[in-house]
């Protein structure tokens, strides 16, 4: 026996082990297959031996060969033998081989049940572990059924190593043997709160996977997961949890609301891109499920998107774009960069995104960049894609975003220079559309088109069938139809009748000929007034008579017909001219009448003439069917339907009409009572009915310093510049107006960000109005209420409508938020722990006024004005807490040298500002006051008073409330994102002075801490590595403030740098204060 063992181990020394096998395969590159087959033979020999070590070695080699694709199923029984070895080193080789080679249909698995059960209950945790791991790969329904109980017991094993594996394998067991889920679930749920994070994570994994299949059943676990989310630090686990929430929120919107805040905190604080991505995805899902605009949250999305790039970022953005287009808009530079990407899928995705993110403000810029790409793009397919996108972008929703149509025409003209594009007809239809619908642009368009016609040889120079010559179709038509705008109709006429035109496609020639006639009429009319030039008119006739025969010979029937018709006409005219007869008027009459665009739903609006019954039979239905009717009735389905319609339809419609009228009445009454229903303004109604209204629309003329008639091709770029200037001017005008208004009424509680942000959408007035309101309608069309819903509606009206509504909603939300906030403050007043709630500053103390019953309560928010470095806007919410009416509120502040309340011109330095509203009992409203600040280095406290009249039923009393306004340095900071490289450069520049701060005993998690600084002190996280983060903010006067925050056991150290040491010191003090209060 002993000898046998010795012999065995000697044998082993000569055996190949795995390493030798690998080496051997590498050394036999030429005859690999042959070498391996000899190896397999050796392995077969080894497996026949009794020695378990030799067997294990052979199985180990088989595992490798299996990976290379060789069939080793013949060794299944040997694998089971090795698995059942008592020695762990061999056992694990067996299990590894089993997990790689066994599958459900391997029959030897049946033999393993007892062995596995034994291993599962082994005292050695690694035995159990390896059995569990192996089992996860080859578990069958039978094994699952037999072992479910054993595994369930292991879920409460003392060793976390076993627990976590058992929990995970339970998922496989559930799949194979669903009955086990019910008894195991309570225990699984328990594992979510396991002290070991590994076990927790395993449980989270399993439940997430289960919940994906049937989310509804797992809603009740949401609070538990919520707790886990705030406590877990493992990003992989967090991702799973957040994913789970993403699946749950559509079922329970309240959950979504709760989630937003912690998710936003995570987004701000995490440095892990994957977690960030998951958070963003879920936030999007939440926002979609809430389906309401939350302006403050879209800001957080912005922050996150900045860092995710390319494919995933674009993917996420396209999701956001659907609900929150504004938040994506600020990334247009990044998206434009993606257009340069080598990956075409990224480029195309970026193009899709651009389509959704244009606004009045950035359209020109985006299109300008796209034009650059058009020039650079290689390959016609991508260029064509760009071209169609440019046109799509510009023309979307009825040219909503175009403010200057001259610019658009020039873009279109520039696009015609593209060689070999297929989209000539698209450009042409755009030109026609714009020229017809925008009256103000016609003169310009005609001038451009005339140039095009003049240079037609450039477009058609290429002999191959060129799609771009379609443009000439549009050009010729526009020049003819609106020829009264032409400067020199004669030369255009000449250009249209050049012999080269005959090479153009037939339908274009036809348009040329027809419009030549229109031009001819214009020329004649132009000459009529000046009898001296009669010769010119005659020469023109001669020109036509000379050139038209070319077209009469055309192979195209349409061209031939028109040409010969017009030729005869001109010959006749010439005769008359020779007799000195005035013909211009008659000729012009041929083409008189303006062509107006027809509204898409005009047909629907045509009223049915009286006495016309569309349902009535024109001829009596054939009588033979009636005679057969009786016989077929029981069977014939078709007859049934006919019969029914014959009898019931007329009655039905009658009822319907009555009913409709009634409903309309009810709805109108409802609308009249509903304060939120915005009624169509009478003026727009009128426009609708009359169908003329062009004269009412003020067309803003642009004063161009450059003469418009640019010889050759126009450049669209100049418009971008001009537009800029125009907007500047408009804005200045508007500001003036605004100021005036403000002086009159004080400031109204408008959108809070309205002032601090860049110019908002509404501020941009278009240079030209799209003439869409004048689309023709049948004469007696009735305006109906459902016009509002029609997507083809004149956009001007509907957008106005929408805007108003949005604004209202926004205001409401704002109020709600404030109230809540307010509430907060009220409760924490005594404890004082949350008094910096708003991230801004403390506000006025609510001083109870002598009269107990009346008290006014206010709350304020101080914010720097980004546009003006010396302005701070203070929003104050006044709430009437008493039950009497409060009116005539006057707000006054004692100015300091540094900070002054901005008062209307002409008011003395001590005059108060009237608050532009009155407060009924229990109501709150917001007023905003602008302060000018000189130095922002020091915090400021301003004293002020609010006087008001409390009106009760029988009397009214004057009241006074003193308060203090505290301008902290934080309120001068504005959250500004910063890229890490820019940040590094900033720090390197050496212009910044340093300072530092230490906080002791801060027990909150690091990401909470960061979120707190971000929130209360307007910083943004630049980079976070472990327990160390860099943060950035900027003051309204452009000071950079950089923080480096580190944490180590309850101590937080903040190293800060700023180019203004005074400001920095104060900001740090304020941060310290924030943390001392929590």
């Amino acid at each position, binding site marked *: 026996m002993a000898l046998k063992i010795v012999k065995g181990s000697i044998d082993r020394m000569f055996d190949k082990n795995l390493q030798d096998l690998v080496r051997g395969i590498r050394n036999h590159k030429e005859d690999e297959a042959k070498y391996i087959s000899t190896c397999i033979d050796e392995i077969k020999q080894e497996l026949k031996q009794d020695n378990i070590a030799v067997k294990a070695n052979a199985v180990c080699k088989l595992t490798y060969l299996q990976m290379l694709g060789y069939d080793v199923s013949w060794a299944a029984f040997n694998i089971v033998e090795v698995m059942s070895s008592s020695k762990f080193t061999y056992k694990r080789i067996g299990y590894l081989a089993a997990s790689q080679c066994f599958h459900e249909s391997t029959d030897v698995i049946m033999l393993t049940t007892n062995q596995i059960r034994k291993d599962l209950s082994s005292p050695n945790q690694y035995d159990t*572990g390896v059995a569990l791991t192996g089992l996860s790969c080859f578990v069958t329904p039978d094994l699952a059924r037999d072992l479910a109980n054993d595994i369930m017991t292991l879920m409460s094993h003392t060793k976390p190593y076993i627990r976590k594996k058992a929990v995970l394998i339970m998922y496989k067991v559930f799949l194979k043997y669903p009955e086990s889920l019910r008894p195991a679930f309570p225990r699984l749920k328990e594992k979510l709160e396991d002290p070991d994070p590994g076990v927790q994570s395993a449980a989270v994994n399993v439940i997430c996977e289960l919940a994906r299949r049937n989310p509804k059943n797992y809603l009740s676990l949401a609070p538990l997961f919520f707790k886990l989310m705030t406590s877990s630090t493992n990003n992989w686990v967090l991702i799973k949890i957040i994913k789970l929430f993403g699946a749950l929120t559509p079922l329970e919107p309240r959950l979504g609301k709760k989630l937003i805040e912690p998710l936003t905190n995570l987004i701000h604080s995490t440095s892990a891109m994957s977690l960030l991505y998951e958070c963003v995805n879920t936030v999007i899902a939440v926002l979609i499920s809430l389906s309401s605009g939350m302006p403050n949250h879209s800001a957080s999305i912005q922050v996150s998107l900045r860092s995710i790039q390319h494919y995933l970022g674009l993917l996420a953005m396209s999701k956001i774009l659907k609900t929150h287009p504004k938040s994506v808009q600020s990334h247009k530079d990044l998206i434009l960069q993606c257009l340069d990407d080598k990956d075409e899928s990224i480029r195309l995705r970026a193009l899709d995104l651009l389509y959704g993110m244009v606004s009045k403000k950035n359209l020109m810029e985006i299109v300008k960049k796209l034009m650059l790409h058009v020039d650079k793009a290689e390959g016609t397919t991508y260029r064509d894609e760009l071209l169609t996108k440019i046109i799509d972008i510009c023309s979307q929703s009825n040219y909503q975003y175009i403010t200057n149509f001259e610019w658009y025409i020039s873009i279109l003209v520039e696009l015609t220079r593209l060689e070999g594009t297929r989209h000539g007809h698209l450009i042409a239809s755009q030109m026609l559309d714009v020229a017809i619908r925008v009256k103000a642009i016609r003169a310009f368009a005609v001038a451009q088109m005339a140039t095009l016609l003049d240079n037609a040889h450039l477009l058609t120079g290429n002999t191959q069938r060129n799609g771009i010559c379609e443009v000439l179709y549009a050009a010729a038509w526009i020049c003819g139809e609106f020829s009264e705008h032409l400067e020199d109709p004669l030369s255009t006429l000449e250009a249209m009748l050049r012999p080269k035109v005959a090479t153009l496609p037939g339908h274009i020639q036809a348009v040329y000929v027809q419009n030549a006639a229109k031009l001819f009429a214009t020329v004649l009319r132009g000459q009529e007034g000046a009898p001296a030039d009669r010769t010119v008119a005659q020469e023109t006739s001669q020109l036509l008579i000379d050139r038209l025969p070319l077209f009469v010979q055309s192979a195209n029937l349409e061209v031939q017909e028109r040409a010969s018709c017009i030729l005869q006409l001109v010959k006749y005219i010439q005769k008359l001219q020779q007799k000195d007869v005035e013909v211009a008027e008659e000729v012009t009459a041929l083409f008189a009448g303006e062509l107006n665009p027809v509204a898409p739903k005009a047909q629907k609006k045509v009223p049915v003439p009286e006495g016309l019954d569309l349902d009535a039979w024109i001829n009596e239905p054939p009588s033979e069917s009636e005679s057969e009717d009786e016989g077929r009735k029981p069977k014939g389905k078709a007859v049934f339907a006919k019969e029914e319609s014959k009898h019931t339809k007329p009655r039905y419609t009658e009822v319907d009409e009555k009913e409709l009228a009634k409903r309309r009445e009810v709805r109108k009454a409802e609308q009249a009572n509903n304060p939120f229903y915005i009624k169509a303004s009478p003026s727009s109604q009128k426009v609708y009915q009359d169908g003329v209204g062009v004269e009412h629309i003020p067309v803003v003329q642009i004063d161009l310093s450059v003469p418009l008639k640019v010889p050759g091709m126009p450049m669209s770029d100049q418009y971008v510049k001009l537009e800029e200037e125009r907007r500047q001017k408009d804005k200045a005008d508007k500001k003036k107006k605004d100021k005036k208004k403000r002086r009159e009424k004080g400031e109204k509680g408008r959108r809070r960000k309205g002032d601090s942000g860049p110019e908002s959408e509404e501020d941009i007035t278009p240079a030209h109005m799209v003439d869409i309101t004048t689309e023709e309608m049948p004469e007696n069309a009735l305006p109906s209420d459902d016009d509002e819903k029609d997507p083809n509606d004149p956009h001007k009206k509907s957008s106005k409508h929408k805007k108003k509504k949005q604004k209202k909603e926004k205001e409401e939300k704002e109020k709600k938020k404030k109230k809540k906030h307010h509430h907060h403050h009220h409760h924490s007043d005594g404890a004082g722990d949350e008094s910096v709630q708003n991230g801004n500053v403390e506000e006025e103390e609510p001083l109870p006024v002598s009269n107990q019953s009346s008290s006014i309560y206010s709350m304020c928010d101080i914010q720097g004005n980004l546009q003006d470095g010396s302005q701070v806007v203070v929003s104050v919410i006044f709430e009437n807490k008493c039950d009497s009416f409060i009116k005539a509120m006057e707000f006054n502040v004692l100015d300091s040298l540094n900070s002054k309340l901005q008062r209307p011109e002409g008011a003395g330095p001590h005059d108060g500002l009237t608050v532009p509203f009155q407060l009924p009992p229990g109501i709150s409203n917001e007023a905003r006051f602008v302060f000018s600040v000189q130095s922002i280095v020091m915090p400021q406290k301003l004293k002020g008073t609010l006087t008001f009249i409390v009106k009760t039923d029988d009397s009214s009393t004057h009241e006074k409330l003193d308060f203090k306004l505290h301008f902290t340095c934080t309120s001068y900071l504005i959250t500004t994102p910063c890229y890490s490289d820019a940040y590094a450069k900033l720090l390197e520049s050496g212009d910044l002075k340093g300072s530092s701060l230490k906080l002791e005993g801060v027990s909150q998690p690091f990401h909470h801490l960061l979120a707190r600084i971000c929130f209360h002190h307007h910083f943004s996280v630049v980079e976070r590595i472990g327990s160390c983060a860099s943060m950035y903010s900027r003051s309204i006067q452009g000071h950079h403030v950089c923080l480096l925050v580190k944490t180590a056991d309850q101590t937080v150290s903040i190293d800060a740098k700023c180019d203004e040491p005074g400001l920095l010191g104060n900001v740090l003090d304020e941060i310290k204060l924030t943390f001392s209060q929590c």
Partner: protein
Amino acid sequence: MIKFLLMVNKQGQTRLSKYYEKVDIGKRPALEADVVKGCLSRKKEQCSFVEYKDFKLVYRQYAALFIVVGISDTENELSIYELVHNFVEVLDKYFGHVSELDIMFNLDKVHIILDEMIQNGHIVETNRNRILAPLLALDKMAEAH
């Protein structure tokens, strides 16, 4: 969930394969070849996530070795991307400057590591020390013999 994990070199030779969802053994080589072809043909600057049939591939290149993970649509691509790196870091810690040869010659050990990290197609452990604990215990046992 994770469907499979492959380690392949630039020549397209499989160095390690692990399937968490049943794929017929006969079909594996074809699948591997196809997947590898898809990843190898991509340039460095292209995105590391590829849509493949009805699932996604996440791959990462380390010298001549590619690690390709097949995941279902619902998995977070970036987290898998990071997991791959974590896996390589663990290998690096155990082998010390891990190379393709280490993986070839110690396939069983790499499997142990992988089994500690991923089970059932789910991430089970990411802590390096904990992942290596069973393997180190095993090594100690081998030394004692």
